[in-house]
């Protein structure tokens, strides 16, 4: 037995040494070599993703989904969300993801004592939470972004009312404004400030411009706060004043992710091809002889011609310079561009008497709102989404591009600021003269789109010349918000202008007014989101439940707007 004991002892010793010798490495081994520890980050490096993230998502709202809602555009492929607000549940993860990094930016700014970064943090906090509540209504605010604090206390954050959030937004923006007003900042790496390259003055103008925007946003519900805020900013004189002040992020154009969303290089033009001008906007531009028309839109490839001598209802084929092209119903987009570029003119004749109805024979043709089959509009011989509709306008060729020129992610413009001041003045607040503010707003918008030289003739046109009505101010503001349609939607909800009518495919007879709370909240924060849903005022679409896109959040409740 002694023998066994010796062996056992040897074994235990050997194994023990064997294991313990290496145990100390275990912790070291589990240090992640693939990323920077949260304790070692530089405050500047947090800014770009937040600033860019907001700009791109705002452009996506304003050029895609909400451009359809406010009838800047319609789509004829993948259209149900765009044209008729047939939205599923909409998550806000993108915004809270930016807010998460922004919270960390604030913590690092605090730790490093950098005032500039604190200002950026506050301004972006205001803008991001403002956008969340603009779109959805009540949302987690006070308790938001604290999931890692105090155990699991904030795991399922409670919702705040829109009122609380908007007040907080204005407070954040005012605090940021004060910081930037003080000037003199150190520790800023300009390359990482994608908006203003470290220029605090510009940030000051920006935050004040945002204050004007958010004050006007709440003017129906909190008129005193709105008035006080707008008058104070107006008095300071610090806000965007020239088109060169407009905050708009340039695209890089290297890859799809940093290029204009409909850049044709990346997808054979299918994203570009789906977007068509809405007849609501297009007809208004035509009527007003608006110089921005040809900046934004392109004439149809093939114009309908009314021809009472025709023996059939419609030409079976297109005509090139008047000559029937037997066998050809249409060309590909690329072929049209080449042929039209070299001077050819394409038409197709029809006889309204035989057809029994009229077609749109204009050079510029928009698609009416919420059609059942938008790709068939104006007797398209190639319905579906593989080929463009030759009888309907497309966006201007510039929107096929990747970057540069007019292709910018627009956030806020000097024109918008002037429209707000015009409205404030019309309300009788101390914000200058309504007429001159309005005219300046229109001029600034033409400047933005490179047609400032045609201001004087444009401003004298009927319906454009100052009429002293809110309707006119908001309609022009709606036009000037092209590719930033979110603002136009928020104005529509607040004022009912322009008087948008929906179309036959719309599930409800009115335009939607909010985003629905998304699956992420419904699935993982049900108790809290249900309380918020209960506070919504159902108008239309009740069969879908209260959390629908026609329900009015606090901001619209009791305003009688937009209906």
């Amino acid at each position, binding site marked *: 037995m002694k023998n066994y004991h010796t062996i056992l002892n040897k074994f235990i010793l050997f194994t023990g040494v064997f294991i313990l010798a290496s145990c100390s490495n275990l912790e070291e081994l589990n240090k992640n070599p693939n990323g920077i520890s949260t304790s070692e980050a530089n405050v500047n490096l947090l*800014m770009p993703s937040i600033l860019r993230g907001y700009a791109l998502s705002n452009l996506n709202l304003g050029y895609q989904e909400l451009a359809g809602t406010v009838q800047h555009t319609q789509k004829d492929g993948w259209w149900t969300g765009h044209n008729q607000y047939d939205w*599923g549940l909409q998550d806000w993860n993108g915004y809270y993801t930016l807010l998460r990094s922004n919270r960390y930016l604030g913590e690092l700014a605090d730790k490093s004592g950098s005032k500039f970064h604190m200002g950026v943090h506050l301004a972006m906090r205001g803008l991001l939470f403002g956008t969340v509540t603009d779109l959805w209504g009540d949302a987690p605010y006070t308790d938001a972004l604290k999931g890692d604090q105090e155990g699991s206390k904030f*795991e399922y954050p409670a919702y705040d009312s829109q009122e609380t959030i908007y007040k907080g937004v204005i407070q954040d923006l005012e605090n940021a404004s004060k910081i930037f007003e003080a000037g003199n900042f150190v520790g800023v790496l300009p390359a990482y400030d994608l908006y203003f390259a470290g220029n605090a003055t510009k940030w000051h103008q920006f935050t004040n411009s945002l204050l004007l925007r958010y004050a006007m946003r709440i003017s129906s519900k909190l008129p005193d706060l709105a008035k006080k805020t707008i008058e104070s900013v107006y008095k300071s004189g610090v806000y965007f004043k020239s088109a060169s002040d407009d905050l708009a992020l340039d695209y890089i154009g290297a890859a799809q992710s940093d290029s204009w969303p409909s850049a044709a290089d990346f997808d054979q033009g299918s994203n570009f091809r789906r977007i068509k001008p809405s007849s609501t906007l297009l007809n208004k531009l035509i009527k007003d002889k608006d110089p921005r028309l040809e900046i934004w839109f392109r004439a149809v490839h093939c114009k309908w011609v009314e021809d009472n001598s025709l023996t059939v209802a419609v030409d079976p084929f297109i005509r090139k310079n008047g000559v029937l092209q037997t066998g050809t119903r249409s060309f590909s987009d690329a072929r049209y561009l080449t042929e039209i570029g070299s001077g050819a003119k394409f038409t197709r004749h029809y006889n309204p008497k035989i057809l029994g109805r009229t077609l749109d024979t204009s050079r510029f043709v928009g698609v009416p709102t919420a059609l059942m089959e938008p790709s068939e509009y104006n007797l398209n011989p*190639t319905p579906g989404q593989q080929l463009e509709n030759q009888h309907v306008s497309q966006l201007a060729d510039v929107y096929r591009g990747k970057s540069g020129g007019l292709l910018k992610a627009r956030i806020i413009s000097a024109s918008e600021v002037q429209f707000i001041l015009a409205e404030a003045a019309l309300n009788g607040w101390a914000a200058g003269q309504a007429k001159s503010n309005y005219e300046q707003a229109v001029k600034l918008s033409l400047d933005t789109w490179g047609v400032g030289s045609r201001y004087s003739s444009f401003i004298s046109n009927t319906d454009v010349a100052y009429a002293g009505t809110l309707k006119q101010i908001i309609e022009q503001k709606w036009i000037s918000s092209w590719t930033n349609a979110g603002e136009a939607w928020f104005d529509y909800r607040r004022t009912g202008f322009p008087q948008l009518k929906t179309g*036959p495919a719309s599930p409800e007879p009115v335009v939607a007014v909010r985003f629905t709370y998304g699956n*992420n909240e419904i699935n993982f924060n049900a108790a809290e989101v249900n309380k918020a849903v209960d506070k919504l005022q159902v108008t239309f679409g009740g069969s879908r439940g209260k959390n629908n896109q026609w329900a009015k959040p606090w901001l619209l409740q009791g305003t009688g707007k937009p209906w």
Partner: protein
Amino acid sequence: MKKEIINHALWIKIMKMSLTQLVFAISFVSLCYSSVANAQDKLKTTISISLEDKSLKTILTKLEKEADVKFIYSSEVIQVERITSIKAKNQSLAVVLDAFLSPLNISFRGIEDGIVLSVKDVDPNQALDAKRAKMDVVIAADQTIKGTIIDEKGEKLPGVSISIKGTTRGTTTNSNGDYTISVPDNKATLVFSFVGYESQEVLVGNKTNLNLTLKVDNKALEEVVVTALGISREQRSLGYSVGKVKGDALRTVTQENVVNALAGRVAGVQVNQTGVVGSSTSIVIRGATSLSSDNQPLFVIDGVPVQNSMSNMRVLGDRNEVDYGNPISDLNPDDIESVSVLKGPSAAALYGSRAGNGVIIINTKKGKKGEAMSVNFSSSNVFESPYRYLDFHYKYSNGNRVGLLDERSEYWAGIELDKGNKAVQWDSPRDANGVGTPTEMRSYKDNMKNFLETGITSTNSISISGSTDKTNYKLAYTNMTHNGLIPNSDLYRNNISFSSAYDLSSKLKITTDINISRSNSNSRNSTGNRGGNPFEAVYNWSHIDVLKMKNVWRPGQEGIQQNYPENSSMDNPYFLAYHLLNGYTRDRVFGNVKAEYKLHPNVTAQLRASFDSYQENRETKIPYSYTRERKGGYHLNDLFNQESNLEFLTTFNKKFNNFNITATGGGNLMNQKSTDLYMGSAPGVGLILPNLYNISNITPIGIRYNNSIRNKAIYSVFATTSIGFKDQLYLDLTARNDWSSTLPVASRSYFYPSASLSWIASSTFNLPSYVSLLKLRGGIAQVGNDTNPYALEPVLGTDSWGNLVSNTFPGTLLNPNLRPEINSSQEFGLDLNLFNNRFRFEGTYFYEENTNQILNVQSPSSSGFNAKQINAGLISSRGWEIMIGGTPIKTQSGLTWNLDVNLTRMRTRLESLTPGMNFITLWDDNNGGAQTFVGQDIGDLYSRGYKKVNNPSSPYHNWPVLTPQGSWIPENARESRIKVGNFNPDVIIGIQSNLRYGRWNLQSSFDWRVGGQYQSFSYRYGGSNWKSQLQIDNLIQGGLYTPDQLVALLKSNPEKYIIPINGNFPRIGGYTKETGGFPIGLGTGTNFDGVFIPGVIETSPGVYKEHLGGEGTRMIQASNMFAWSYNQQVTFDADFLKMRELALSYDLPKMKGFKAATISVFTRNLILWTKANNGIDPERAFTITGSKQGDTQNIFRQGLELQNVQPWTVSYGFKLNFTL
């Protein structure tokens, strides 16, 4: 002298036993002890001995002790009382025995279980007389019997024991299988027995010549299984269920991936082949028990844990999902000796964390001691041909609307085909102005058949094995070449394996196994949707002859523009097959070196270093004009994976009275390292020059690159002991403690034990003689599991905007206080063999609980985190495994039919989660997918909800409520989702049949899955694009009825005509007037492709208006109204029956120069039946994605089929195998 024998208890026992019984008894004892090296090896043991004038018996006993061997002999033949002397110093046992026994005219021979002693045969006949003359026992010989004993193959069997029943007299056959024995009278019965063969008893009668064929005792060979740590155990001693598959069952039919060969063979094991040859094969034992992993078992090959996963997939380029096959496919099936499947944690507890999903132990073939050199060749060819395709209609051309051709469209809703209609097509002749001449529109239903080629797999291997007096060795080489069904697709594998053992001294032995393999392919096809997948591309056009696309490039634009209808949304399938190339090379080395040292006759220590390392280099080339990336792309991805284990083991074994005890203790150091390096073109940026595939051909700003490193270590100590009592009661205990680098210091050490008990009741009680075995068994165990590296501390993410790189705060809230997952299990079983083992039954019930699941679950993003790591929840799984086997036919003429059936029924339930969460998502698509609510089963499939009349008293109860536009109203809330099935089968049935007649053997294997569902997104696209025949068949041809008739018809059976069910959302109408379509306006006129959806429209709360074709019914064009938003529409039953293998083989008669030769022909994976009968193989309901799904770590979606639409194929082949 006889008295002395009687006085010695052991010898009495031996005398009373037949030689076979003795051999079995000894082998049982030694097998319980663990892997006692076999006696052939023992012959190399160096010994010293010196004894003078002792009995032979004493000397043999001393030798047994010195060399740790057993001598097996009949005392009737060997005179053990003879007095003799022996003297040897530091000589091998073989040399000693030769010198010692030769003068005594005794020969010896090492077999598996001991050293057999027999009287030397000089001349078989004369020598026997001579021998008999030397015997003390004089036999009154009045009858002499002679004969020859052969096996079923006709080979002569030396060493067969022949005894006279009821006496101690007997003899053995000589090297020619001949024997001669004298019997007292003609009433004597001779008993013929031989290790590994079934004993036979024959009444002598008046025979003088008695030739006999002994049959292999399959049961006896199966008795021994390999368990954890490579310990060989007699199966009856195990308290838990172990599945076992013999190597030849795996080798008869060639499989490219060895895992495929296990399908249907072992109860509790589910195998799914997820795609074409070379794709990953999933193997799950006793159901998915962990939500955080892919549930694949641990593979251990010759003691080396080998890495495998179901996640060897990547998306390189836009919509180019590629499955590179799971790495276990690197193993060469021809090298396999045996496979053991350790199912439950009881069986696997010793392997630690990774054994939670079970362990598959593979032992490869080795050279054997005492075996002369032999060379084995085998060669096989398998051919694969398609025979069943998706049920698409081919009635209309591509186009979106009746009568309009649009070749760019994915819809088949254009011009009617084969009716003489003409249109200008992509390849129509054109004049100088580009104006085309209309040509006839025809359908091309054979496009897939014409596109695919016959798949051919050729496998050739050669191996050399043998031994010298101190070593044994085996060297093998295998080459596999596969040309796939898809033109230009291929797969290659080359394996070299070497194993050897070397005795450095009588106490120290070194063994090694080394495997080197290369798997590579020049082109693995994409399996994704609407991108690089050639199968989907072939199904894109109804009216284009795919063979006309063989000219891949547009003339003059070679390498720049593919040849296809301009602006198509899909690619030319030949372009994808020949030019979108996903190549890879995987070089792998695994092996081990082991030193075994005998510290004491009862104590052995061993040290083993094992290593597994592979490097996989992937290269993807995407040509210009690929629809998803017009400027092509180039991607490089290098993976490196390495695992090393250093293991130390000490084993003690001893027999005390009625107890056999074996105890093993040891420790293990495991280190893992993996790296991943990617470089390639950004989406949409592509290449500067076409056709030049090099990183320098990408603009600097368009290059994307990243790499990652992962390290992990687990250190362990473990111990096991097994105690056997009287060969009828066995108790096994194990314990292990792990220290994992991935867990926090406080909880990184975790301990887990197991215990199991086996009771051979048939040995305890005197049961009727037809009961061959009655065994009761049970076990309980616990296994801990750690997590992935770096799961404790967050690091910042990065993000770029042009050249500006920035940081982002991570969205997953980590838990720095993680605890290990704990899996506790119990299993109970009963084994019953009857009628001399001709009927066999094994039943097992198991119950497992998995707690503290480490999961990244989604959380409200408003909390600041999209996901959080939780360490909670309880998943339970329970199930039955039943194996019924039998030998219904067994005749003297050599016809034997063995039939084995195994049934498995299991369910895994989510018992609880963390507070505030009531469900878990496996994958989510279209507001449906696989999710599980607390209290429900894992694998449940859901579909988005739709608004319906919920009031049970309403006449419209359950009817869909429609929008004013006449379409279903989606209900998006999670609670509104409809449970439409579960992707796990209810019962899995495997059937193996083996019919042997002489040299002929017919074996077949069936895999039958009962129950279960899957969702087919191929049918979702197929229906939406108006391609599938199914959705045309489902249309109710409403236009053929009057409005009143129609209403009456629909109301007559709402379950059939109105209420949605799996596979169908009712629609009324047709595509043409003749097929019952309703009129609907179209541009210049009216068409008859109107359909409507039956249901009701809610006019005010609770008030409904019927929408059944009457006034106000909203018509929609047929091709535009599909229940796209509802996965229920494409949920099908997954039941299937497949004949996995059918093989006929023939063992060629012995020829000069050949030791053995076999030829076989076979077919495999023949689908005999699917319940859904829609042309889809339900096994293919695995969808590869590039990212982690739902709350899991998996990058595949189980229960979803998406363009994984290889036609059904029939494979057939032949294999030649011969040994020199």
